[in-house]
């Protein structure tokens, strides 16, 4: 624990916290990111739908509208520097009726007002040419060619990697329970007893932004978790579209979408249901039929048979429906960045700029660093190389030849790259490399990954976890447990035994 006083402490290493960290890393200021989970991107950002939005949903009178429009154009440069999977495949909002087309036209006008380039109002013929798998009943829609898809955790990982490369510190398992204002700086207390000091504090704590604000004795507000369930479909799904397909939105949600991913799979969802429990990420069967019914309405070939897995995430909903990004009125060196629901990921790079400006307004002097390096090395992924390219790579780095995950063609070198960047839980490795994400869901590669983790980190097998905390995989070794075979009373056997 250092005695130094950091210039800035960012609470929360989701996409917002990570983007802010990277932005600040280009300035001569000492920054630390505090994340309560065992790895970054383990909260709201983990289950993000992975859409870089088209900038036509919201007016720029809303903060989120302004930041979405500003953010969406920043991704190309970011991808060049940070190499996360991202494609501008285009977004379609499809209409089934004349009424719906009127809403689409409103969105088009909003997009034009927002100065979005390339927006197109499509008639029936045009929209079916753009996406041949659409339901034949679609009469037209909006085409936003600048909209795209991204792997959210790879984005967050790369932002943090770049920030750390430029001197930002990361402390994981640091759950902020109190931040005492000592006139010039905050003393920030973690649940496990760690403490550090920072002059400015940025509350980017997602679902827990209300609790962090209370811990700072700042504004009182309430974050309501809003659950979204999604299904992941196979790469070979017949219903895989080439663009992100939106229905015309309902009042409170963008609806059930069909979302291709940069890696060729497809997501269907999300739902939107409010709940109280911030830790309840359970999926239910109820949504199942509804989600598939809605998805098939858009793309008839979507089928449950293609499901690889289902999961749920929670959005941090705040009353008012807009981002709450402001210098706290109660704690002048605290910047609140709360209620960041959709289009949070799209807006993240612009949020970072805005927060940097708020810091300046709040009194932090920021001077650019001469030695800022925006680039991080690109880690080759063996699945993207031809055999000849792979052979060249293998001559220098043989670990690329050891294929660990057969379903997604992930090599040992990539697993090691993840571990050496601090991703030491099975889920983190999954998000960094895609190993365990494929059809067999870790059936074949889990034990290999565990071996590599042990070798690289010295962890014992019982210390390896799915995502930190108590989520270990192996509890004992053969020989640790005493075998006691119960001797049930002698009874008839019929081979058709039934329990109660």
């Amino acid at each position, binding site marked *: 624990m250092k005695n130094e006083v950091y210039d800035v402490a960012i609470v929360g290493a989701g996409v917002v916290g990570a983007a802010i960290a990277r932005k600040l890393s280009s300035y001569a200021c000492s920054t630390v990111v505090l994340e309560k989970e065992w790895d970054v991107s383990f909260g709201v950002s983990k289950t993000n739908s992975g859409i870089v939005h088209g900038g036509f949903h919201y007016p720029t009178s809303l903060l989120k509208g302004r930041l979405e429009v500003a953010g969406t154009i920043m991704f190309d440069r970011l991808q060049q520097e940070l190499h996360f999977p991202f494609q501008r495949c285009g977004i379609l909002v499809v209409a089934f009726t004349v009424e719906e087309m009127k809403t689409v036209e409103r969105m088009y006008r909003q997009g034009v007002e927002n100065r979005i380039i390339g927006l197109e109002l499509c008639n029936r013929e045009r929209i079916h040419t753009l996406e041949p798998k659409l339901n034949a009943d679609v009469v037209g829609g909006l085409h936003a060619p600048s909209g795209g898809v991204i792997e959210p955790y790879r984005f967050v990982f790369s932002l943090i990697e770049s920030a750390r490369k430029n001197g930002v510190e990361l402390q994981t398992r640091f759950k902020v329970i109190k931040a005492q204002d000592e006139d010039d700086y905050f003393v920030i207390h973690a649940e496990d007893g760690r403490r550090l000091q920072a002059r400015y504090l940025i509350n980017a704590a997602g679902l827990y932004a209300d609790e962090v604000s209370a811990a700072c004795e700042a504004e009182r507000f309430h974050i309501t978790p809003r659950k979204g369930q999604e299904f992941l479909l196979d790469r*070979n799904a017949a219903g895989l579209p080439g663009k992100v397909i939106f229905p015309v939105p309902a009042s409170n949600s963008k609806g059930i979408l069909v979302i291709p991913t940069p890696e060729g799979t497809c997501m269907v969802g999300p739902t939107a249901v409010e709940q109280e429990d911030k*830790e*309840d990420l*359970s*999926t239910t*069967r109820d949504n199942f039929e509804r989600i598939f019914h809605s998805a098939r309405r858009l793309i008839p070939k979507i089928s449950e048979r293609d*499901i690889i*897995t*289902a*999961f749920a995430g929670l959005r941090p909903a705040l009353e008012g429906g807009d981002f709450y990004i402001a210098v706290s009125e109660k704690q002048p060196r605290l910047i609140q960045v709360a209620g960041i629901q959709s289009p949070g990921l799209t807006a993240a790079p612009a949020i970072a700029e805005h927060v940097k400006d708020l810091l300046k307004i709040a009194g932090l002097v920021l001077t650019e660093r001469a030695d800022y390096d925006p680039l991080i090395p690109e880690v080759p992924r*063996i699945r993207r190389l031809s*055999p*000849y390219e*792979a*052979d060249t790579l*293998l*001559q220098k780095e*043989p670990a690329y*030849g*050891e*294929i660990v995950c*057969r*379903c997604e063609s992930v*090599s040992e070198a990539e697993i090691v790259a993840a571990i050496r960047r601090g991703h030491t839980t099975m889920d983190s490795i999954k998000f960094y490399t895609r190993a365990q994400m494929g*059809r*067999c*869901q*870790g*059936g*074949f590669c889990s*034990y290999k990954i565990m071996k590599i983790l042990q070798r690289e980190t010295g962890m014992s097998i019982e210390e390896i976890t*799915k*995502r*930190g*905390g*108590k*989520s*270990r*995989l*192996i*509890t*004992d*070794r*053969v*020989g*640790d*447990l005493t*075998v*006691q*075979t*119960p001797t*049930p009373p002698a*009874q008839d*056997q019929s*081979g*058709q*035994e*039934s*329990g*109660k």
Partner: protein
Amino acid sequence: MREKRTDAVVIGGGSAGLAAASRIAAAGYSVTVLERENELGGILNQCIHNGFGLQRFKEDLSGPEYAERFIDSVGKQDNVEVLLETTALEVSPGAVHTVYGYSRQGGVSRIDARAIVLAMGCRERNRGNIGIPGTRPSGVFTAGLAQRLINIDGYIPGRRAVILGSGDIGLIMARRCTWVGMEVLAVIEIQSYPSGLTRNIVQCLNDFGIPLYLSHTVSAIHGKDRVSGVTVTPLEEDRSMGAKSFDLDCDTILLSVGLIPDNELSRKFGVRLNPETGGAFVDAGLMSSIPGVFACGNVLHVHDLVDYVSEESERCASFVIQYLKGEYHRQHHPVTAGANVKYVIPNKYLPDTTNRFYLRSLIVKNKAELVVTLDGEPMKRKKLSHVQPSEMVSFSLDAVSPRTSEPGEKRLEVSIV
């Protein structure tokens, strides 16, 4: 890049690959076997229980013992080259096929061969496939992964387990878990009858007093970081009876809910797959839609007995040999699955020779009968004392001589009545 020419490449060094490679090599052809693990044997290496080889060797062997017979045999054949820790990632089919094998030590090996034998085995159906609702804690394993961890690595995945699925893998694991000191609380089976062998119900469940809940399913998984329990729900007439659900406290769930042929690679290079079996469409010689590419073992269709895998693979090898000799003919006639039959393999038969078929029933029945018709006319019947979907049936058909001068497709249809 290492380049090599050989007569046949066998992808997979488990029971199917070994049997095929050995037979092809015995006929004098050169064979290269690609195996991604650091040893041959495939899934047999982790199946330390008995019950293997009863048909083939008339002995009651464990998996590793069965595998060792074939590994030793291949080891003595100079014209079989084995590349371990090598994964076939790409195949370029053509007049001569090219297989790219990736390995740490050898880099990328390019292997050109006239014939390819697909023998990659199968993978397990997992939680994602069957969609069990609830949280996503650690502690949910497929039964095969748990078996691998316990038997090969010596790691115990938990202390109190519930097993979903009463197939043999689930039952064997119920015993194995108990024999390493875990507590197995129950085996849950969605059907109204167990899918595994009765002997396994006795020696894996009854022996330890582990209850078997038939017509039940796991309707939710609980636990934040690690599994803390499951909700078990009975089914009555296929409807889930939520009100009668009960919870079991456990920290581990083993899923034994089915196997799927592992055709990632096959699909990638254009082999046509049969949605009924999950494996390739094959003709009477077990050749796929791509000339010179054959399939055998679990990658073709999921087997119950490794003895049948060896038999099928050796049969496949004899056709590979024919092909390498330039004597393979594709004058095959169709075979279809008739009443109560889920699938028949292969999908074609050769006239004027003995054909061997493998099939699975859709129904459970005692005193059933297998009926084979040719263009609608019955031509063979076989009594089956008991059929159920989880027990594969095999039979041979001696020379079928369809009268070619007569009209009709000469289609064989296999039914169970």
